[in-house]
């Protein structure tokens, strides 16, 4: 077990941003923390890293780690090349050669100042730094946000292969399609709580969509309401009415809406 989070609680001004969150990340596992904006994903990661102090809870990290923050900010006056050199001086597990290889793959000009890079390029530059660190756990907050589809796939492909070298990844996202490609475990976080956490394949089979006449209540999550009918996302074991398969998109939306009867 590379990372263990037990009963993490973090509040801001009496509001619980992270409300009793627990999960583990195993070696060689890709763990996706999904949820809408404001769900508490970033706060969770920051508490894990010690950037924020939790109110209560236990956090254990059993390996070296590297972090890609939500705000991918680097020293604006430095060139990309200079940032790599600086990183090399500060960090022990950094492989500058690998960073340069990644920067080339991502087509980031080395002599350009960070200030002149677009948001997407800055993200790719930061990713090159993070992925070039030889650590056991990579914590990434929205790693593909702002990237064009081609680069996004390249990054996902890189993340996908990391378990092959025994590395673990914990990343947050609010883009479902990415998660489906690479995640082992998915945790859905809404309003500070983890409402569902399981192996992605299991999740898809766990829930089905049930269509019932409007007003009839089911023990599940209300997904859609038409003029005459209600659609619920329900656990397969408690299914009723007209049953249809539910894809991850539907499951996610229903859980996030969180209207649990």
């Amino acid at each position: 077990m590379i990372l263990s989070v037990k009963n993490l609680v973090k509040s801001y001004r009496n509001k619980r941003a992270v409300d009793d969150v627990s999960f583990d990340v195993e070696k060689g596992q890709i763990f996706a923390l999904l949820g809408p904006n404001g769900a508490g994903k970033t706060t969770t990661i920051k508490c894990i890293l010690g950037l924020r102090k939790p109110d209560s809870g236990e956090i254990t990290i059993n390996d070296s780690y590297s972090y890609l923050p939500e705000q991918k900010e680097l020293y604006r006056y430095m060139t990309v090349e200079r940032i790599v050199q600086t990183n090399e001086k500060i960090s022990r597990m950094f492989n500058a050669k690998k960073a340069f290889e990644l920067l080339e793959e991502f087509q980031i000009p080395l002599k350009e100042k960070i200030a002149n890079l677009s948001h997407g390029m800055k993200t790719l530059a930061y990713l090159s730094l993070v992925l070039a660190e030889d650590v056991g756990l990579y914590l990434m907050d929205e790693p593909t946000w702002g990237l064009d589809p081609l680069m996004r796939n390249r990054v996902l492909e890189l993340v996908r292969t990391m378990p092959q070298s025994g590395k673990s990844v914990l990343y947050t996202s609010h883009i479902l399609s990415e998660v489906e490609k690479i995640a082992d475990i998915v945790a859905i976080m809404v309003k500070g709580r983890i409402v569902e956490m399981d192996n992605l394949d299991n999740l898809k089979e766990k829930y089905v969509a049930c269509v019932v006449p409007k007003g009839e209540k089911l023990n599940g999550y209300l997904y859609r309401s038409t003029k005459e009918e209600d659609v619920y996302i329900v656990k397969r074991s408690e299914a009723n009415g007209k049953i249809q398969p539910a894809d991850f998109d539907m499951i996610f939306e229903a859980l996030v809406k969180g209207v649990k009867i």
Partner: protein
Amino acid sequence: MVKPVWFKIDFTSHVPVYKQIKERFKVLILTGELKPGDFVPSIRTLADDLNVNVNTVARAYRELVVEGVLEPVRGEGYLIKQLNGEELVRSSIENFVDAVERCKEIGVTFERLMLLLEQVYGRRDDDPEREKLGEKL
């Protein structure tokens, strides 16, 4: 000889990826592209080729082994098992049930399906082929 395998996975489908992999393998066997005795790609290779999580492929292979479709060979990898009659029947029926469910979803009536079955098996009463299979079913 390792037979290369590639197909596109639908990540947004409600069907989990590992299931899609299993189904595709079975289809490839049915259509003859993969024959009993052929070696299939290693877990790692297939994961890389399909751009899929390694654990997902591992699960698919695991279940295919349990179902008797694949056979692990020490030091060599996985190969397509010689399907005996029973397994062939079982997987064919599984595909049939899936197809029936799909027809039901889109609104094909029970009566129409029955009609089709009758057509495929010839006339109800006196077809000798039908009798043989019918006993085994």
